[in-house]
């Protein structure tokens, strides 16, 4: 451990001399207040340090102490339901120490030291274990069973294994390794800037079901995939992120509020414990870890927050869980990077962002994936990442959006024009895409209905054609369209309003199962296809458009999941009857 003295202070950047023995990316304690920082550059014996707390009141001559270890997080029981700041300090514990406002230099452990966890061993004395093998489990919450794994680099024979209640620091097992005995606790540490190792990456082959129709049906995300949601302010990025955090079919959700509004985190904190996971029936908070570094909190910790979050997510992935990570928003992270880069007087790239912006983003997103984790068991885990991007003025030609789009495979483009019309989720169906469709086709057709992808394609085609017809209408008016085309416009409207439009604040509409999505898709298409057939047989267009059953189709989204089958049959029958009526004799 080496100790130096502060030479220069400029905002979150501190330069200290006498640091020759420190390593790059070591954690340091700055000044007598022991603020936490990280070494990001070394020049001779001078270290440039980014400080994760407000630096006012710091001056030359104060001590800087290197801790000799890189920025790490604590992994173990107690993570779930926690809310952390960007460097994994629990915000509720900070509140106990410093009140409603965040004061500096607060030291609180990441995992609660006094809590005891019931440890159930799964290995016996004499067993051979290696990195990643499970030695026992802890039931952390009702829905999450944490698996205690042999830490990286440890291999040997179990010499001692305990069972019962332990805190995270107590020894639960002793492993006889080649280099001597190694005590294992429930907790391990991992440096945040290094991805946790795994055996092998697999290609994603099943969707992360989210219950959001436009996403699941049109632009599905794979388990282990990456998606980006760029959009101007007010277009509903955060609502989409919240919806995914609530309803995505993941075992664990890590939600990172990176440089966003404080009230949004409060909203999550208030709402999640109240909401029930449709799969387990338990509160959603029981599977969630929150990282909150709001926009008024120190900017350097914002940069660290996404690494803290993804390391925690990787840890659960290694246990064999499907983990979904939401980062809102990566633009704020990039801005933090830009601010530090500016203070380091680096040569800027585009729009003042550092030249390494693209590679840092890529490194982050590449930590997602569908993997086989270390250990003899070969557990399959997945980490899906959804990053929100906040491009200035909603213009995605800016560097952060562009660097993101080069990496991600799913793009949900938010459109302010749709938002103004209160069409939510405001995902533009014409310019969004998912490159996982081909991988996913088989899964959907096998697990939901055989014609899922076919129906999806039909709806996309109608919407595409609507956009073209729309151009014509703008030039020459609706009357110039043929009856067939007007019917198509009506069908497109129905797809938009009855299928794509989804109200996140409606009790039932907020989540739609794949089965119900299929039914809705089918109803909307059945209306169109049967009307086209009727039109050919001479039914009048007005009558087809004004069929009362259309209102039932429109309200189908509000039918509770347990009644959909029955209602679906009813609406289908009604449709046939009314179509037949339009062809009825005498009254046209």
């Amino acid at each position, binding site marked *: 451990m080496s100790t130096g003295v502060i*030479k*220069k202070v*400029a*905002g979150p950047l501190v*330069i200290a001399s006498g640091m020759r023995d420190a390593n790059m990316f070591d954690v340091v304690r700055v000044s007598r207040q022991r603020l936490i920082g990280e070494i990001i550059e070394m020049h001779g014996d001078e270290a440039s340090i980014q400080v994760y707390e407000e*630096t*006012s*009141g*710091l*001056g*030359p*001559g104060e001590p800087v102490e290197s801790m000799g270890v890189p920025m790490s997080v604590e992994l173990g029981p107690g993570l779930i339901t926690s809310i952390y700041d960007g460097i994994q300090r629990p*915000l*509720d514990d900070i*509140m106990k120490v410093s*009140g*409603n*406002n*965040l*004061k500096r230099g607060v030291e609180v452990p990441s995992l609660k030291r006094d809590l005891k966890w019931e440890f159930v061993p799964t290995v016996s004395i004499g067993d051979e274990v290696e990195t990643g093998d499970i030695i026992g489990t802890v039931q952390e919450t009702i829905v999450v069973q944490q698996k205690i794994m042999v830490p990286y680099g440890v291999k040997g024979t179990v010499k001692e294994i305990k069972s019962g209640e332990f805190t995270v620091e107590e020894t639960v097992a002793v492993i006889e390794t080649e280099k001597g005995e190694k005590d294992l606790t429930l907790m391990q540490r991992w440096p945040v800037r290094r991805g946790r190792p795994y055996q092998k990456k697999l290609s994603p082959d099943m969707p992360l079901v989210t219950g959001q129709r436009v996403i699941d049906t049109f632009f599905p995300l794979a388990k282990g995939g990456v998606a980006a949601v760029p959009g*101007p*302010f*007010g277009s509903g990025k955060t609502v989409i992120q919240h919806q995914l955090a609530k309803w995505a079919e993941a075992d664990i959700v890590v939600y990172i509020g990176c*440089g966003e*509004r*404080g*009230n949004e*985190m*409060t*909203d999550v*904190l*208030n709402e999640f414990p109240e909401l029930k996971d449709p799969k387990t029936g338990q509160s959603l908070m029981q599977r969630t870890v929150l990282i*909150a570094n*709001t*926009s*008024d909190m*120190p*900017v350097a910790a914002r940069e660290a927050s996404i690494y803290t979050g993804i390391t925690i997510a990787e840890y659960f992935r290694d246990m064999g869980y499907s983990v979904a990570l939401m980062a809102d928003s990566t633009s*704020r992270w990039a*801005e933090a990077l*830009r*601010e530090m880069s*500016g203070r380091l007087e680096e040569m800027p790239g585009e*729009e*003042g962002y550092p030249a390494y912006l693209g590679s840092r983003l890529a490194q982050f997103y590449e930590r997602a994936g569908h993997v086989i984790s270390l250990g003899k068991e070969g557990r399959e885990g997945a980490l899906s990442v959804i990053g929100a991007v*906040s491009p*200035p*003025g*909603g*213009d995605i030609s800016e560097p952060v959006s562009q660097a993101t789009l080069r990496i991600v495979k799913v793009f949900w483009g938010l459109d302010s024009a749709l938002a*103004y*019309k*209160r069409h939510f989720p405001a995902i533009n169906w014409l310019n969004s895409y998912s490159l996982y469709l081909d991988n996913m086709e088989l899964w959907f057709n096998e697990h939901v209905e055989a014609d899922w992808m076919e129906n999806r394609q039909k709806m996309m085609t109608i919407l595409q054609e609507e956009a073209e017809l729309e151009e014509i*209408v*703008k030039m*020459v*008016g*609706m*009357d110039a369209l043929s009856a067939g085309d007007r019917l198509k416009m009506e069908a497109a409207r129905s797809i938009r309003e009855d299928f794509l439009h989804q109200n996140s604040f409606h009790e039932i509409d907020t989540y739609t199962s794949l089965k119900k999505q299929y039914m809705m898709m089918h109803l909307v298409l059945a209306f169109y296809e049967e009307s086209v057939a009727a039109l050919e047989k001479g039914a009048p267009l007005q009558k087809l458009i004004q069929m009362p059953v259309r209102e039932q189709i*429109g309200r189908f989204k509000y039918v509770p999941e347990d009644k959909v089958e029955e209602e679906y049959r009813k609406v289908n029958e009604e449709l046939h009857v009314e179509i037949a009526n339009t062809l009825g004799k005498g009254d046209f």
Partner: protein
Amino acid sequence: MPKEYRTIQEVAGPLMLVRGVEHVTYDELGEIELAGGEVRRCKVLEINGSDALVQLFESSTGINLSNSKVRFLGRSMELGVSEDMLGRVFDGMGRPIDDGPEILPEARMDINGLPMNPAARSYPEEFIQTGVSAIDGLNTLVRGQKLPIFSASGLPHANLAAQIARQAKVLGTGEKFAVVFAAMGITFEESNFFVESFKETGAIDRTVLFVNLANDPAIERISTPRVALTAAEYLAFEKDMHVLVILTDITNYADALREVSAARKEVPGRRGYPGYMYTDLASLYERAGRQNGKKGSITMIPILTMPEDDKTHPIPDLTGYITEGQIILSRDLYRKGVTPPIDVLPSLSRLKDKGIGEGKTRADHANTMNQLFAAYARGKDAKELMVILGEAALTEIDLVYARFADAFEKEYVSQGYGTDRSIEETLDIGWKLLSMLPRTELKRIDDKYLDMYYGK
């Protein structure tokens, strides 16, 4: 007695370099004493060994490198606060300018405040009735929200802000309230308009004014909102008041920020504004809110003028990413004589969903709100089409929508600055307008509300 330095090396714009200093810390407050005895304030922006880079809060006129003295005070900038501030007028640095006595502070608070712990926030959900239909009905304001007004030069944002300050109330409560008003670089007339308006209603006794006018030093504007928010925090979280903070004009504030950044020769972000402007603006806006266990609240209405009416300009853009919605004024509506000219479609209140509904406003509120938005958007589309193709090209239903859009602007949005509508009145006008449309078109409204209100 702090040590005095006569070692000013450089003065350039708002920056000053002082050599050979000892024990000076980052962000420390300093004082410059001119030869004539005048004292001005400054703060440390960067400290490098024995060199301190200092930012002036006031004009640099008259500073002399050889005989001006600099002292560092060993603390950051603080404001002495007290309940007696109510009814008083201060300059942009928090010094009284109304010929009244000095404030005897009950406490001294750092003007930069401390970030609020997100776990200690309490979610804003109490409906504030502003009496303005376009806000109450469609972009509802709640206690603890930050809702900016995006205006442009020549638009009547001051009238709207004054109307809100005058009429805003929480239904069914008689709690203590206060207004904190911070003027940054606005004209005397505009500032006086607010003062007169507060005087008219007697609200002036519950108001604290911080005034930095257009001819005051631009650099002072950097502290003005911070000083104002410190006073607001004191009144809200120490004295249990519900405080409405009006900050006008954020554009002038951001320009002052740019001036300092340019003088420091920092790498600029978009349009020359510093890369950290988002963080800087957030450190102001995020001071609004409510806290667990505290009775008071800070509701914030920042006003900004969009250069060239451009919403994608960095100032409105970054503001929109931090605040919880925005009220946008439109030049088109203003020309049409709609007062207030609120363009409801791009306006938004993010916190409205938790502030409306049964027990807060009325059970049908959310439904009618969505329907009004959708119908008005469709009506505007129809009108656009009408401009290109003529009335004949519209279908019958589109014509109804077009008429609806006109009536909506005239009856719902345009109410004048003197009308104070209750939320019931606002909702009833909404229903009256929706009744112009056939019932089958009202897909976003539950049947039970249609039965209750449609066509009545």
